[in-house]
């Protein structure tokens, strides 16, 4: 995995954030996190991560809303995003019901760490195939 990357974790569950931060650091990545979804865009603009791991099912602003805002915000719209979710299928619609671009990958909780590692590597190398 790219040793100089910075990965941002957005999840309202403290356990998930702690776990993913520890795991990503063990993979040699720098890490930042945001538990309040409504602050995710501001944090992404400030931290400029190479990749965002984004929980979908969050109170307040959902992960899909965060994703939509990311794709519409100058400065962070090109950052690859991996959805992390306990839910199954998610619908990706933007304003006016136009389809948003697919995320780099979708990883279900509880995590398959081998699959997560592969998805993170591919997203960082720009080889993602969409979720």
């Amino acid at each position, binding site marked *: 995995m790219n040793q100089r990357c910075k990965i941002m974790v957005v999840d*309202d*569950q*403290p*356990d*998930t954030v*702690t*776990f*993913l931060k*520890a*795991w990503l650091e*063990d993979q040699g990545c720098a890490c930042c996190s945001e*538990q309040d979804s409504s602050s995710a865009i501001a944090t992404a603009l400030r931290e400029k991560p190479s990749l965002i791991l984004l*929980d979908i*099912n*969050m*109170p*307040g602003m959902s992960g899909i809303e965060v994703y939509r805002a990311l794709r519409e915000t100058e400065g962070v719209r090109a950052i690859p995003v991996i959805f992390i979710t*306990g*839910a199954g299928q998610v619908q990706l619609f933007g304003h006016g019901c136009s389809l948003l671009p697919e995320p780099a990958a979708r990883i279900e*909780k*509880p*995590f398959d760490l081998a699959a997560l590692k592969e998805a993170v590597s591919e997203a960082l190398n720009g080889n993602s195939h969409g979720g």
Partner: protein
Amino acid sequence: MAGQEPREDLAGRLESQAEFVGSVTHALKGVLNGLQGGLYLLESGMSGNDARRVEGGAAMIKQNAARARSLVSNILYYARERQVLRENLVLREMVSRSVEACRPAAMERGIGLEASTEDGTFSADRAGVQALLCNLLELAAEQATGEANRESRSVRLRARMEPPWVIFEVAHGGTALDRETLAGALGPTFKPAGADRAGLWVHAARRVCEAHGGFLRVETLVPAGERFIAGLPGGGLQGGEPKNLSSG
């Protein structure tokens, strides 16, 4: 036809149960995720001789084991039509037992539990009251977790006799539950909302109150936090809320 449930009622009940199963599954995934995270921290901490990581992992495992216990208890409350077995209960003893049962998990989260109670006795189901209080205390502790200042990281339980009611108030200074979660938990049928299992906890607490002929309300506090107010009719009189309680 006599004895048959109207089709609309049956459909509504099935829909509610399907949503309940979905919510429980989601909550279970959260517990499994927490256990997986705790084990990862524990194992990687042990192999790297990182005592802090080992400690963090063990705490995460304990918290999620406690969540699994609460989840099972709430599933049983939801799934079974449980008869209310009334007996005379000592208010101070019920408060003390519930607080002590919840204190270890709260302490691991860095949350302080405070309790104050009047003296008195009331008639209610012992297991139901303990489940009600533990649900509200655990939920409040969870909502207060991660708050920066010390005052926000405390949960307060106040119990008082207000004949014919026994009133329990559980307040915290953390993040209040969002409207969608509360509407789903306090509506006529359970509708899960949001990511966590908070709605299920509130719903189970409400079922205990209503099984006793009581009520559960939630008030948002300013500048932060919320207060759960549970009322149980302890003096044998039922129906209607005490007039001097502000509406939530």
